[in-house]
């Protein structure tokens, strides 16, 4: 029973905490928190691929960036477009692209998958860079956030606080759904495929289709994060779709740890704060983070969440009641 109530309490507590943040935090930090929440969804969606399905994608930024650009382009070219339609168009673009590219990658896993996703990400980056008339190329695109139309009333979103609340609700809901997803039939199917794909085929599962569905689904979630990225900064540039953005999300997820659902959330938090702190004191912060990453691959492949869990088990769970640590992505 405790197992089922704990996550719920955590979720409610985090939301309540989130609601009070605009009162506590200064504008600068609220800005950072909004960014963290947006990247949290991006990272959680990435971990559904890496941690749950065991698929290392180097192309997750193509969804994030694509939706970010589509959002900006839609707002600029379609006057009076409502916020809901902006989100719909932005996510829709990611779904379509995810489905097409996922179809091409259907049969590939492991190194092939890593390589091909990187190649496709590079294609999107090249298009964004060269198609200057639409994407603004190196200059990027600036937009103004449309207001939020709730039918009975409309809320202007030009203030950061209002936009923060919208971000909290929508990103939060999406993250909670991801957590729920890991417990559903499809979520379990993905996990079991990583464990033993051959057996899954013999149990009647079409594993290629499962991978396609997962790829499209995580692409859509990354796309949703991308839409909010553009809305937040009211600007988008090619950095949103560059392979460096994929690197960033990989680092966030890996630092936090792929074995736990909350690992990436922790990772985003640490990464963005570290980035802000380090970039103030040194120009070489990418180098620092690169070294940290390699050291973690060598010595702490489970990430921070794994370290925390080990410490927790050592001090609070003296008796070893589940026959050793579970190596799966999440207790099943």
């Amino acid at each position, binding site marked *: 029973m405790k197992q089922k109530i704990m996550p719920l309490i955590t979720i409610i507590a985090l939301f309540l905490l989130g609601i009070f943040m605009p009162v506590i935090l200064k504008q600068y930090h609220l800005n950072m928190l909004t960014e963290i929440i947006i990247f949290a969804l991006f990272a959680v969606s990435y971990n559904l691929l890496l941690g749950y399905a065991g698929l290392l994608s180097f192309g997750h930024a193509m969804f994030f960036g694509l939706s970010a650009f589509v959002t900006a382009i839609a707002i600029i070219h379609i006057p009076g477009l409502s916020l809901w339609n902006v989100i719909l168009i932005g996510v829709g673009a990611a779904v379509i692209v995810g489905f097409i590219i996922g179809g091409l990658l259907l049969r590939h896993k492991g190194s092939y998958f890593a390589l091909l996703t990187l190649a496709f990400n590079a294609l999107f980056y090249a298009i964004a860079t060269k198609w200057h008339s639409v994407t603004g190329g190196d200059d990027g695109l600036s937009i103004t956030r449309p207001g939020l139309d709730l039918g009975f009333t409309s809320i202007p979103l030009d203030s950061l606080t209002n936009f923060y609340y919208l971000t909290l609700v929508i990103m939060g809901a999406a993250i909670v759904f991801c957590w729920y997803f890991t417990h*559903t039939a499809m979520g379990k199917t993905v996990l079991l495929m990583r464990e033993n794909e051959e057996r899954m085929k013999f149990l*009647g599962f079409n594993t290629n289709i499962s991978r396609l569905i997962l790829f499209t689904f995580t692409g859509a979630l990354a796309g949703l994060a991308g839409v909010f990225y553009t809305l937040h900064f009211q600007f988008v540039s090619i950095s949103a779709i560059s392979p460096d953005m994929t690197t960033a999300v990989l680092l966030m997820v890996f630092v936090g740890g792929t074995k736990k659902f909350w690992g990436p959330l922790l990772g985003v938090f640490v990464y963005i704060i570290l980035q802000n702190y380090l970039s103030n004191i040194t120009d070489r912060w990418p180098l620092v983070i690169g070294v940290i990453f390699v050291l973690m691959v060598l010595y702490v492949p489970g990430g921070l969440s794994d370290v925390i869990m080990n410490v927790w088990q050592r001090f609070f769970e003296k008796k070893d009641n589940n026959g050793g640590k579970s190596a799966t992505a999440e207790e099943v």
Partner: protein
Amino acid sequence: MSDYLHIQNIHKDFSGLKVLTGVEFKVTEKERHAVIGPNGAGKTTLLNIISGKFKPSSGAILFKGKDISGKPPNVLNHYGLARSFQITNVFQELSVFYNVLAGVRSHHGLRYNFFKMPDHDRNICEKVESILEDVGLVDVKDQPASSLSYGQQRALEIAITLSTDPELILLDEPTAGMTREETNQAIQMIDKVTAGHTLIIIEHDMEVVFSLANIISVLHYGTILVSDTPEKIRNDQRVKDAYLGEG
């Protein structure tokens, strides 16, 4: 007029190496059919072809009159075929319960659902429990598969095979590596859980074959030497030659 299962002139080459050279036999519904043969006769290759792991180089497999050769395993599973593996092929990190749950929910159509939690479905959980009861693993249902004894892992292998409620069950050396006592228990268990199903069993151990099968096919150098009842097989000179010839 059509047979339940008709293995029709199956050939299989692996880059020039001819493993099966025209395998032909029939299985009637509810039959317990054993395929025996010396090592290297191509038994496991044959099973891999029937179960969809490999495509035959030529030939056909008619299941209720329909050619199913070359169809992928997941489609064959939907037709009602299931197989076990000679080398235990379970989900090692998962508990016994969740190992069996995967197939049961697949059979109930809960494969790709984004909203339903399969372990909250009463029917599915009860079905898992009843399978575990049948194979004698209820007591260890919450343990990870990796912590089971060898005999229990083999039982789990059978449980997973049964989990999609198949009508045609293919077992690949279910007692391989077991002690005599474990084998006897396994025979009883298999006999019980496969009652009322059609069974094809690939076996090396003659005791298992003669206590479970009512028809035996002898595979020798890639073709079926003879298909007959156990009594006739026991006294068949060609079979004796084939086995003695192998030394």
